[in-house]
């Protein structure tokens, strides 16, 4: 069922690798078990750390008592009183304490820390810390919260006349999505090593070393030179290791400083699931005015997201969410509101898609509802309204290039056999209800998605991220703080640098991700790594190439403009002059180190007004369509996925095999969101914290997948590349909802679409 057999073009050392798929650089270590994750590293004298947590969702701490009858020798104890600097987890707001000292705002709130060399004694010690809390009433329902962290409004045109126009049809719907857990297979893991200069070195599993680098300076009252943060091989992140590692690093560092010894903290699975950030739940209301032929005229959208107890990343999640809430469509008139509110539950945060899977589920499920109420084929409705070059989005952004809503839609419609399968589903729906054939209903549905690449609005302009490379005696070394958490950053950066320098891939290495040695290229989030940081590295490599060409011109007495490097050999006028390495060595001997660092510049014309919330929210967008075919069992209410086709356009695939891996992996996470993954909270306590009761897809849950990649290069991306990482998370859930609608004639507006929800929908009047 694959579009093509896996094609691995091996790195041919003389040729470009961009657009081909050389074996990933970290592959051999990972397949032999040699790759060392945090838990695999030994630190002499190391203690284990654990966290004492609130146990109540909201309250005031009365006392923290360490049982005087317990033997505390060899156990290090830390409370808020031990914090030398600011007791905060640094992110957007300073509202979250590293350790609670007066109020607790969620059930997993950290209050005290313990460390001990012996893990069994440590577990026992945890039972001898008595925290007394006077409980306060918690707010647990996002719709009942009056504490708004942040709200946004986007307005275009005037929606009022449209809703008053009796020639238009008004369609309304409410959609709900819950928490989703990242469930990286390696839990959060950090080791803090104290230093003689009273500073600390942090090793860990993480996406954003500089978050920790800055956060711990304030916490520990140390300066920039007293901290180094080193990312080790990281067993998955998906956003879940964007901001949370700052908490864990802070805790481990506090213990390590007090103990004078390294302290490792590795969460058990239950603790990781209960305490760390998840995808924001949301309630989404859509009200739309459309022409009887399906043309969209106006939308009024209201989104409420649950931020949890503290602000963390909620303002930016909500912002990305609201900016995608009207989907990949033209809306002459729009009013889109979004607010993210506080509840007394653990803070929600980043998860691949970052607000968009929520709002695009609302949008795409609502498009199905529009088609249903108008009696139209949802494909035709999408086709009629899909954005094309020249269209203006509700923020006022005019799309000028690399817009592929229609091409991806047509590609999946054709490839999945949508028209015929939809016809067959409608035919089957007309069978008499009692007939055996009718007990299993097939359906097909599709969805259309877009995803903005890079940080939202003025984010990249503020960040001014820097990256580059240094010349080595054997080639060049990439310098950036962007992390490889499995997606293949190391390989893609090497390809881009090798291409610009004209050397084989094997001559490029990537520096250890250590904040004391690499420039701050910003966090590894927001589908920005290839386009923003990769593009910056490519520019730095071009700058290095120019310096070396000039040097070769001088040393070999040829005109600088004629020197080039191909396959690792400098040449001019068709004559080979010298291998890259020998030039590099001579340069380093004669002139000293050569380090080329560039800073990312937003493309000209990309402007954003944060106050008015207008302008170009993203320099460009990636596009995807998904078609899902499935079968619903009318007796057991089970859903079986039969086939899935995606078509994605993200400019250019630098490494097609890695890109397909991102698409397939993101798609399956989204299928989990659609069908399986649900968290149950009772009184602010998460009940299903284990892999046994929070189910993610296994190999058997995944249908055959066809992954189509369309190219439509973006003029400002490296080789035309835009961002890809999050795009595949956006479309599959609404495509599943659409397919279920096609099978059983009911639109299920809530995720996940569990057998219980199918049953309820079928039995509702």
């Amino acid at each position, binding site marked *: 069922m694959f579009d093509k057999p896996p094609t691995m073009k091996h790195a041919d050392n003389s040729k470009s690798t961009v657009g081909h798929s050389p074996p990933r650089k970290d592959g051999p270590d990972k397949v032999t078990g040699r790759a060392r994750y945090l838990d695999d590293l030994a630190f002499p004298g190391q203690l284990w750390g654990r966290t004492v947590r609130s146990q109540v969702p909201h309250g005031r701490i009365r006392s923290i008592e360490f049982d005087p009858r317990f033997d505390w020798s060899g156990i290090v104890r830390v409370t808020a009183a031990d914090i030398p600097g600011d007791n905060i987890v640094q992110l957007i707001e300073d509202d979250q304490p590293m350790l609670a000292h007066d109020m607790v705002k969620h059930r997993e709130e950290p209050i005290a820390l313990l460390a001990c060399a012996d893990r069994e004694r440590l577990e026992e010690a945890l039972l001898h810390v008595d925290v007394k809390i006077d409980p306060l009433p918690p707010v647990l329902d996002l719709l009942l919260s009056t504490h708004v962290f942040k709200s946004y409004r986007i307005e275009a045109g005037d929606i009022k006349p449209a809703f008053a126009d009796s020639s238009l049809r008004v369609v309304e719907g409410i959609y709900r999505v819950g928490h989703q857990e990242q469930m990286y297979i390696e839990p959060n893991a950090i080791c803090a090593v104290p230093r003689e200069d009273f500073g600390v070195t942090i090793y860990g599993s993480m996406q954003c070393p500089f978050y920790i680098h800055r956060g711990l300076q304030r916490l520990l009252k140390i300066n920039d030179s007293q901290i180094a943060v080193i990312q080790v091989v990281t067993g998955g*992140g998906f956003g879940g290791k964007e901001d949370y590692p700052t908490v864990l690093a802070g805790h481990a560092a506090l213990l390590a400083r007090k103990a004078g010894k390294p302290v490792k903290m590795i969460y058990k699975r239950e603790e990781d699931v209960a305490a760390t950030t998840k995808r924001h739940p949301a309630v989404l209301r859509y009200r739309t005015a459309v022409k009887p032929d399906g043309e969209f005229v106006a939308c009024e959208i209201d989104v409420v997201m649950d931020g949890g107890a503290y602000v963390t990343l909620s303002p930016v999640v909500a912002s990305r969410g609201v900016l995608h809430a009207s989907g990949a469509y033209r809306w002459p008139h729009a009013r889109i509101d979004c607010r993210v509110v506080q509840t007394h539950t653990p803070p929600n945060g980043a998860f691949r898609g970052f607000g968009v899977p929520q709002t695009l589920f609302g949008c795409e499920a609502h498009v199905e509802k529009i088609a249903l109420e108008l009696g139209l084929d949802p494909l035709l409705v999408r086709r009629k309204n899909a954005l094309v070059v020249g269209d203006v989005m509700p923020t006022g952004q005019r799309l000028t290039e690399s817009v592929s809503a229609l091409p991806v839609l047509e590609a999946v419609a054709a490839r999945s056999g949508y028209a015929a399968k939809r016809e067959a589903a409608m035919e089957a729906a007309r069978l008499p209800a009692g007939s055996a054939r009718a007990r299993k209903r097939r359906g097909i549905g599709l969805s259309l998605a877009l995803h903005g690449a890079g940080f939202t609005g003025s984010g990249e302009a503020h960040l001014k991220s820097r990256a580059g490379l240094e010349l080595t005696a054997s080639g060049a070394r990439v310098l950036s703080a962007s992390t490889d958490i499995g997606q293949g950053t190391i390989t893609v950066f090497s390809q881009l640098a090798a291409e610009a320098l004209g050397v084989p891939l094997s001559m490029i290495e990537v520096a250890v991700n250590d904040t004391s040695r690499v420039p701050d290229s910003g966090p590894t989030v927001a589908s920005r790594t290839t386009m923003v940081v990769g593009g910056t590295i490519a520019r730095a490599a071009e700058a290095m190439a120019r310096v070396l060409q000039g040097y070769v011109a001088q040393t070999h007495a040829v005109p600088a403009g004629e020197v080039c490097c191909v396959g690792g050999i400098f040449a001019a006028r068709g004559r080979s002059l010298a291998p890259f390495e020998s030039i590099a060595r001579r340069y380093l001997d004669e002139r000293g180190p050569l380090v080329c660092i560039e800073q990312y510049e937003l493309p000209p014309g990309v402007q954003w007004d944060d106050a008015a919330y207008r302008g170009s929210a993203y320099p460009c967008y990636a596009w995807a369509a998904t078609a899902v075919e499935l079968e619903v069992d009318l007796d057991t209410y089970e859903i079986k996925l039969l086939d899935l086709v995606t078509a994605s356009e993200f400019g250019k695939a630098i490494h097609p095999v890695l890109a397909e891996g991102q698409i397939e992996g993101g798609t399956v996470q989204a299928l989990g969101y659609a069908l399986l993954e649900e968290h149950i909270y009772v009184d602010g306590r998460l009940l299903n914290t284990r892999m046994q009761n929070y189910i993610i897809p296994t190999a058997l849950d995944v249908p055959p997948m066809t992954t189509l990649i369309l190219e439509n290069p973006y003029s400002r991306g490296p080789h035309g590349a835009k961002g890809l990482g999050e795009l595949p998370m956006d479309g599959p859930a609404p495509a599943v909802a659409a397919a279920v609608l096609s099978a059983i004639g009911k639109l299920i507006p809530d995720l996940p679409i569990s057998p219980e929800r199918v049953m309820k929908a079928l039995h509702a009047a």
Partner: protein
Amino acid sequence: MRLELRINGSVRSLEVEPLKRLLDVLREDLILTGTKEGCGEGECGACAVLLDGQLVNSCLVAVCQAAGASVVTIEGLSSSALTPLQRSFVECGGAQCGICTPGMIVAGQCFLDSGAAATDEAVREAIAGNLCRCTGYTKIVESIQHAARETR
């Protein structure tokens, strides 16, 4: 308690707590850290090893249950060169973050050794006890099928 294990072909004699998890004995006593822990309760398969040729989750095995048995871990599958299955994983994109990969490869090797036909269904069945959150499994299935073609 003192017991003997045949680890990756060589006999090792160990002084250990009888109820210590085989996973911890491998990682802590024998410093074979290629075997990973993802859940500690038999759900994820990151800790998969072969015990007398059977695929087991080493987090669920007390070391005393393995006394006298032969254990093969990811470190025992290859010596200097990669095995065909390991090569396939590198070439076909079967490993992303890599944390599930040792367990997947042990499970995949166990399947290949069984000699069963590497149909899509059979391969998926063989790795159904191993969770991967990165790849969506497609490229893992391809990797195993590719190795099956190479080795038969």
